[in-house]
């Protein structure tokens, strides 16, 4: 004997689907009522009608109407008014779910990471172009390593002549119109603005990452932590990934090439950016990245399930492990 229910009715049926008793909601339900009932159904909670029938038939097995292996039966049909209310409630439910998902930290992280990538790549291209431009126009100018200082100087001088004076060169022979000089100046300013923008984005990223992924952030640094989380499509998924996958996140191309052709598998993906790996000798990087990936996996689980976040102390312990790996004797055939 089963007690089958949906959002508006409940029936007790026997083994062949014969209806023994039924009960249906009376009157018109409000959308709020229906929303409550729908969430009850999702949590496998009985509706008032189901409870009522349960009192009458306490030995009937309660289940929802989509349970497989039920005999054929029909629940009482809802009234036209209630169907209308039901459809409204469904749309409201969808809207609420969308609202609930909006502003999720995973999405915020993703936008920030992608934005900083985009800004960085366009800033670098623009900067190179700018530096080449200045080099071509002022061949004797000494562009030292600090390119930004040079550009900052250029952007502050309204006259080409005063700029040349300030960097101690003679005014070149060509007489570039001042309009063009102004364009050079503004593009130099633009490069500097973009740099400042990147810094602001990364600052926001660090803050969010430290708050949302405290353990992974303290282990990898907030920026790398954010990138790992985004590449894994969210914190929850990062916490569920095997550490082998975390190790090669970002090295998908090499990894699938390996699967396809049998070429050597990649040893590290984004995790390579961590100085423990990138500043280690080549032959030990694979070992360190494997160890570090497994630690990331643990840290991600702590963050995703609100455990006690790691501190510098915990990371120090891992740092010692890295030292052990680095000081291990290199085998003869190791590359």
């Amino acid at each position, binding site marked *: 004997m089963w007690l089958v229910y*949906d*959002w508006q009715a409940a029936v007790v049926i026997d083994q062949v689907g014969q209806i023994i008793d039924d009960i249906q909601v009376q009157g018109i339900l409000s959308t709020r009522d229906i929303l409550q009932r*729908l969430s009850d*159904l*999702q949590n496998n909670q009985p509706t008032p009608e189901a409870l009522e029938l349960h009192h009458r038939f306490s030995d009937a097995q309660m289940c*929802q109407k*989509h349970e*497989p292996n039920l005999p054929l039966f029909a629940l009482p*049909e*809802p009234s*036209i008014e209630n*169907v209308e209310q*039901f*459809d409204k409630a*469904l*749309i409201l439910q*969808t*809207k609420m*779910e*969308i609202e609930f*998902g909006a502003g999720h930290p995973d999405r915020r992280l993703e936008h920030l990471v992608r934005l900083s990538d985009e800004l960085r790549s366009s800033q670098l291209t623009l900067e190179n172009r700018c530096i080449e431009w200045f080099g071509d126009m002022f061949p004797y100018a000494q562009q030292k390593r600090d390119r930004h200082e040079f550009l900052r100087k250029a952007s502050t001088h309204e006259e080409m002549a005063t700029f040349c004076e300030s960097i101690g060169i003679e005014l070149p022979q060509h007489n570039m119109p001042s309009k063009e000089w102004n364009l050079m100046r503004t593009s130099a300013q633009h490069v500097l603005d973009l740099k400042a923008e990147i810094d602001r984005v990364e600052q926001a990223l660090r803050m969010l990452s430290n708050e949302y992924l405290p353990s992974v952030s303290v282990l990898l640094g907030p920026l790398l932590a954010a990138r790992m989380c985004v590449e894994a499509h969210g914190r929850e998924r990062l916490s569920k990934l095997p550490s082998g996958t975390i190790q090669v996140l970002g090295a998908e191309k090499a990894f699938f090439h390996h699967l396809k052709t049998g070429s050597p598998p990649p040893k590290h993906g984004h995790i390579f950016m961590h100085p423990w790996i990138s500043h280690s000798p080549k032959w030990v990087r694979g070992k360190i990245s494997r160890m570090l990936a497994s630690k990331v996996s643990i840290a991600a689980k702590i963050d995703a399930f609100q455990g006690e976040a790691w501190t510098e102390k915990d990371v120090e312990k891992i740092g010692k492990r890295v030292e052990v790996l680095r000081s291990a004797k290199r085998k003869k055939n190791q590359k």
Partner: protein
Amino acid sequence: MCMSNNHQPKSKRFLMEKSSIWTLNATPGKRVYGEQLKRFSGQEFRRWDPYRSKIAAALLRTKQEPENLLPRPGSNVLYLGAGHGTTISHIHDIVCGSKNHSKGRIVGVDISPRCIRDLLLLVEKRPGFIPILADARKNDWQNAMLQRADWLFQDVSQTGQLDIFLETCGNHLKSDAKALFSFKMASERWTDEAIANQLETMKARIEHSNFVCEEVLDLQGYEDEHFLFVIRSIG
């Protein structure tokens, strides 16, 4: 209650002119995705792009009467993998019509919040359409079904597409009703087996589950590596 009315004559909500397909616009003057609008004998139609909609591509490829693949006005429709609303808007044109005067009901399920956001924009103008944010593989959306569907379409591009489809048809399709199943080859595990063999195996599974597989349409040219199965439940 949104009952299907099988006696209602198929009104001219769907036109085929040479190789272009048109549906009667349920929201005259408004486009959904930048499609062409055109008037035929005083009524405005929207062009159904076969390069963007697998059903439109299937309508051009089928050997049956194209209208046989489509739901009737006033049907109760289940649509898994609703996407951005390109196809579903045309289905809505046919099933519900302007202000849902045909009393159709379309439940559109999609897993992606991004897609649902687009679909919610359709809701106001197109009554009768109900978007649901849920995973087709799970049961959350099933409560939205008030009765078995008169017509069903699935386009989910996940592994195990066929399993989902057969289970859904078993649970939610009326007897003697049509169901279309868009199959994306690339979503399945790559095997050495020839494509023709794989399709035969799938066909056999469909027949084994007590459905009639009427046609398997290769959508190559419109949507590469996609096949559309036309299926009918036994009456």
